[in-house]
């Protein structure tokens, strides 16, 4: 239902628009939309143009502004008139003028293709403005006092650093550790490899210093021997149920950092590398010997030679296919510690590749300078007891033949497994690959609700009561890491961040850095939530989805499809929105068959109104119309880049930008077909294993849903080619004109939409 608005329409006046457009017709179109003001303005996108509009707002009380000139992407700094004045920027240059040829006569209704595009967009975006309101989040929900504290799970280096960093920035921290003391693995390791110049000597571990700082900080409340029993709620109002022996305690939390770390790979599976034989130990067991101050063989004597097998279990498809990243340096460190204790003991390091990136190369070089350290590249093919010692056979060495190394003691440099992984399933998940975003497998959680799988395979640590599972969804091998290279703290559970070795194998220095970043994200999240703003990638967005629940049919599509697990359900299956978890992508809006989920400024009705905003040319005019829903994250910028390069688009296409393809509701498709569009295109981000969809599942869900549309098309006796979904990377801008052209050809083949002239 169109609102009573006061609209001003402003079109840039320059050589290009004068060449392309009939000004009279543009003005006529504006009048049809009941614009209070219509102006052609020279140098519109400029401080002067902005000032001119500002005066009109004052004089005429305008509350809706349509600016037709350049893309917002090019000139974001203009036309902000405050939150009450809604502004739409139609990229007249990119969408119309640069990407099309001028008409011979814009007034010739039979041949004025480009003129019509400009007019149609004027209508579409004017109608959009008539159908949206400024978001008023405070009116959409109960007043809430938000917690701004941070829960840090795990008291190892990553957890300590996160806690300290959040506290130093001024936030209260609850630091929860399941063991009876802080420090984690690193506290058990006396020495560490160097992170400061000259990078060639071992340094003392600084964990105890870090613990002191944490203990001495009055903003950090340390809870030892404590675990999380349950987390309910949403960012800014998480209720966390803690278990510490006696009665559970419930605390209110703003955001969460999961720094639960790693565990060593189970060495009992490494029998082929000699584990189980006398004098064969893991690097963890070797650390314990070092802590005790003496390296001794089974018989109590000191070893004269010690061999290290690198990648013991790591880089091995039968065990941990990934590289555990720190074991090379750990063995170099151990070699140096041996040298401190036993000047004459020989050390053999049997490796595939020594991985000492960055300045650690200098540490490696220092180790290479020790004449008693022998580095041998090869694959270990056999380990056997040999008298009192051990015999290790290697293949594929640099010399091209097989060699045997004999040593009194063997240390297996075992790798890291994230605590989120149930170890038995590590090798099994290699087959399945990454947990699929469309995982529809359901499991039952403890409170009887159905939960999507993904996180369920892993250990239960967070114990979220979310409908979509108890823990952070994991990537391959059980790491709850971000999938996005550019956004390493992207998470599918808003305001819950993973940090340190739980998310990827890393050393303590990197874990500390990672933890600092997680601390920033955690405090940023509580700030944004308090302002009712979205988290990344629609950072700072003030709009909220509104659920008109009295018309809900409990179909559960929205609760299943939300990529961020924002929606829970009551026993009947009615969604229980948790708006603070919401990332404003609109995937729920796209899912809802009853169209009861809408944003104030982005809604099913406003989209439907846009597509009907202009008069559909009759079939015999031979002006087919193709409606393209274009994702504003990658596809729309790509389209504008193509236009800037002056690539030409089909003049039959009309664009509606969408927040994510996931927000495209099926009714938009049927409405478009009813309105007489001959074809519909959905252009979004790449999906699949290496998905680029900024809302994780949106583009994939759209494709899945469009599968259902094909049925509908058949019922309507329409060709299925009329509705197509495309995924495009932002650097594939050069392919966009071809997509339009191909759809033009399809329409030519299948003919006009038979509903067109009704």
């Amino acid at each position, binding site marked *: 239902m169109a609102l009573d608005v006061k609209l001003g329409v402003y079109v840039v006046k320059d050589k290009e628009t004068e060449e392309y457009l009939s000004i009279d017709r543009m003005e006529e179109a504006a009048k049809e939309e009941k614009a209070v003001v219509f102006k052609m303005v020279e140098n519109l996108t400029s401080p002067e143009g902005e000032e001119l509009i500002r005066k009109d707002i004052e004089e005429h009380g305008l509350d809706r502004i349509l600016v037709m000139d350049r893309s917002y992407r090019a000139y974001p700094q203009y036309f902000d008139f405050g939150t009450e004045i809604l502004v739409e920027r139609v990229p007249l240059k990119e969408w119309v003028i640069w990407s099309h040829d001028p008409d011979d006569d814009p007034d010739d209704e039979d041949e004025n293709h480009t003129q019509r595009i400009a007019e149609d967009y004027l209508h579409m975006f004017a109608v959009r403005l008539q159908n949206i309101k400024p978001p008023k989040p405070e009116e959409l929900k109960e007043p809430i006092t938000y917690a701004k504290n941070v829960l840090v799970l795990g008291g190892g280096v990553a957890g300590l650093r996160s806690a300290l960093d959040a506290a130093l920035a001024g936030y209260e921290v609850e630091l929860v550790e399941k063991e009876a003391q802080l420090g984690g693995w690193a506290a058990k390791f006396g020495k560490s490899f160097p992170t400061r110049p000259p990078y060639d000597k071992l340094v003392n571990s600084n964990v105890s210093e870090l613990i002191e700082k944490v203990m001495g900080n009055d903003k950090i409340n340390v809870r030892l021997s404590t675990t999380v029993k349950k987390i309910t709620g949403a960012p800014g109002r998480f209720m966390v149920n803690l278990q510490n022996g006696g009665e559970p305690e419930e605390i209110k939390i703003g955001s969460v950092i999961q720094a639960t770390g790693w565990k060593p790979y189970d060495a009992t599976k490494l029998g082929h590398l000699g584990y189980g034989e006398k004098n064969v130990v893991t690097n963890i067991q070797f650390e314990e010997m070092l802590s005790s101050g003496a390296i001794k063989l089974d018989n109590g004597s000191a070893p004269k030679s010690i061999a290290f097998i690198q990648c013991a279990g790591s880089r091995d498809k039968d065990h941990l296919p*990934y590289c555990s990243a720190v074991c090379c340096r750990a063995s170099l460190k151990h070699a140096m510690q041996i040298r401190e204790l036993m000047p004459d003991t020989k050390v053999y390091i049997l490796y595939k590749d020594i991985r000492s990136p960055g300045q650690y190369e200098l540490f490696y070089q220092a180790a290479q300078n020790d004449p008693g350290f022998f580095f041998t590249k090869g694959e270990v093919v056999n380990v056997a007891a040999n008298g009192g010692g051990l015999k290790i056979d290697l293949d594929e060495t640099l010399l091209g033949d097989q060699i045997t190394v004999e040593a009194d003691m063997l240390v297996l440099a075992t790798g890291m497994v994230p605590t989120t992984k149930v170890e038995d399933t590590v090798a099994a998940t290699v087959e399945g690959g990454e947990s699929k975003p469309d995982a529809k497998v359901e499991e039952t959680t403890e409170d009887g609700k159905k939960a999507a799988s993904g996180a369920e395979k892993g250990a239960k640590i967070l114990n979220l009561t979310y409908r979509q599972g108890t823990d952070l969804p994991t990537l391959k091998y059980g790491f709850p890491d971000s999938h996005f290279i*550019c956004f390493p703290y992207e998470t599918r559970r808003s305001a819950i961040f993973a940090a340190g070795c739980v998310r990827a194998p890393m050393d303590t220095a990197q874990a500390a850095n990672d933890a600092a*970043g997680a601390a*920033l994200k955690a405090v940023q999240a509580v700030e944004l939530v308090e302002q009712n703003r979205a988290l990344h990638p629609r950072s700072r967005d003030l709009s909220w989805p509104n659920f008109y629940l009295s018309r809900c049919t409990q179909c559960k599509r929205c609760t299943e499809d939300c990529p961020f697990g924002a929606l829970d359900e009551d026993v009947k299956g009615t969604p229980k929105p948790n708006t603070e978890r919401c990332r404003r992508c609109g995937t729920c809006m796209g899912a809802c068959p009853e169209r009861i989920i809408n944003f104030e400024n982005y809604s099913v009705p406003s989209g439907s109104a846009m597509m009907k905003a202009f008069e559909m040319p009759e079939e015999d005019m031979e002006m087919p119309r193709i409606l393209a829903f274009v994702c504003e994250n990658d596809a729309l910028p790509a389209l504008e880049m193509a236009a800037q390069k002056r690539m030409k688009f089909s003049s039959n296409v009309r664009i509606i930008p969408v927040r994510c393809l996931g927000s495209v509701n099926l009714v938009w498709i049927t409405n478009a077909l009813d309105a007489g569009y001959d074809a519909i295109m959905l252009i979004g*981000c790449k999906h699949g294993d*290496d998905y680029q969809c900024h809302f994780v599942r949106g583009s994939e869900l759209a494709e899945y849903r469009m599968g259902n549309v094909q049925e509908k098309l058949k019922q309507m006796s329409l060709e299925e080619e009329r509705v197509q979904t495309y995924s495009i990377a932002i650097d594939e801008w050069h392919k966009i004109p071809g997509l339009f052209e191909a759809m033009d050809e399809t329409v030519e083949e299948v003919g006009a939409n038979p509903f067109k002239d009704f």
Partner: protein
Amino acid sequence: MPDNGAAESRLKAGVVVVGGGIAGITTAVEASEAGLDVVLVEREATLGGRVARLNHYFPKMCPPSCGLEINFRRLRDNEKVEIYTLSEVEKIEGSEGNYTVTIKVNPRYVKPWAGDYTEWAKTCPVEVEDDFNYGLCKRKGLYFPFENAYPSQWIIDASVVNDPKFQEWVKECPDNGIDLTEQSRTVVVECASIAWATGWKPYDASKIDLLNYGKHPDIVTNVQMERLCSHAGPTGGKLVKLSDGGEVKSVAFLQCTGSRDENHLPFCSGVCCTASLKQASYVLDQYPDADVHMFYIDVRTPGRLEDFYQERQAIEKIQLHRGKGIKVDPVDGGLEVTAENTLTGELKKYTVDLVVLATGMEPATRTEKPPIDAELDELGFMVQNDDASGIYGVGTTVRPLGVAETLQDATGAAIKALHMARRS
């Protein structure tokens, strides 16, 4: 938001971020979304730095412009970040918690509201070396930096401003958006701390004897290889021999070009192994029958990047040779690579069409030190302290890193900025 163009201005900020590559952008965006006022200073005409020049990221083989675009969106309507491009930090005074940073903003010669010059710029009579494409081609004196450049503005190369031919041509400007008389201006910022994110540059391969870099067009660096495979690059993304435009039937990647070499960069640059494996895929995507040779000392693909390595190790057309490429000579029918087995000293020769030198990351601070005392190591990297201090390095300013790790570090730098701003 881009700055307002005031001739001289003084402002206050929580943090000044120096360097507008992906590290600096991230520190700025993350700090601002946590509530801090940020000034972001970039020397070039746009943000994006090194990653804007990459074709694809490993291991997803996705375009860097995708993440850049999202970050640019986060900056566009973000009034808490003031962006100064074409700008350099001239002077830093004061101390931890209370710095005064003097920034020189160089002229763009194109007004912020100026229109689009795509058609007109084609007629520009003056060309300069295109440093965005690492010198592989020329660009016009008036140019648009790259497809999704931000700020999305045209620029005139400072070296052509006094060229009479250019000055004459500029008179035909279709709007009044060009001003060749524009002067540099000064901005003074008071801030609590400074995040130094000037990043890295590719090591100059011409310093390495016997590789003949710069002397034959088919000997390129890995960063040039990115441009040669990018659709927006000088060849439209078609990988060809620049010597004759011919197809590429064989390629040699020489790892550790300059890195792990005490005469050049003694450290490991950390990313070049995975980068070359990625580029091997660029080659095979275009020429499935091409022979790809990679000469390495160790293949360093930490963490889950091991999968990326294993996938490529399994491809027959990719041959991995343990050894170091020490010499490249133009011969009949291509380029002859001499590789030395680092253990046995044995030399082997291979003839290929294209040689890609996997040059390493030289920290910018190695040659351009910050104008204030900041601890640098002998390699030129900024030394990192655990706790916040007044000036701190970000990302590859501190150590060689891949993009994801750089961004963890850059996000961590933002919390340091918060500490310092809230302490003072």
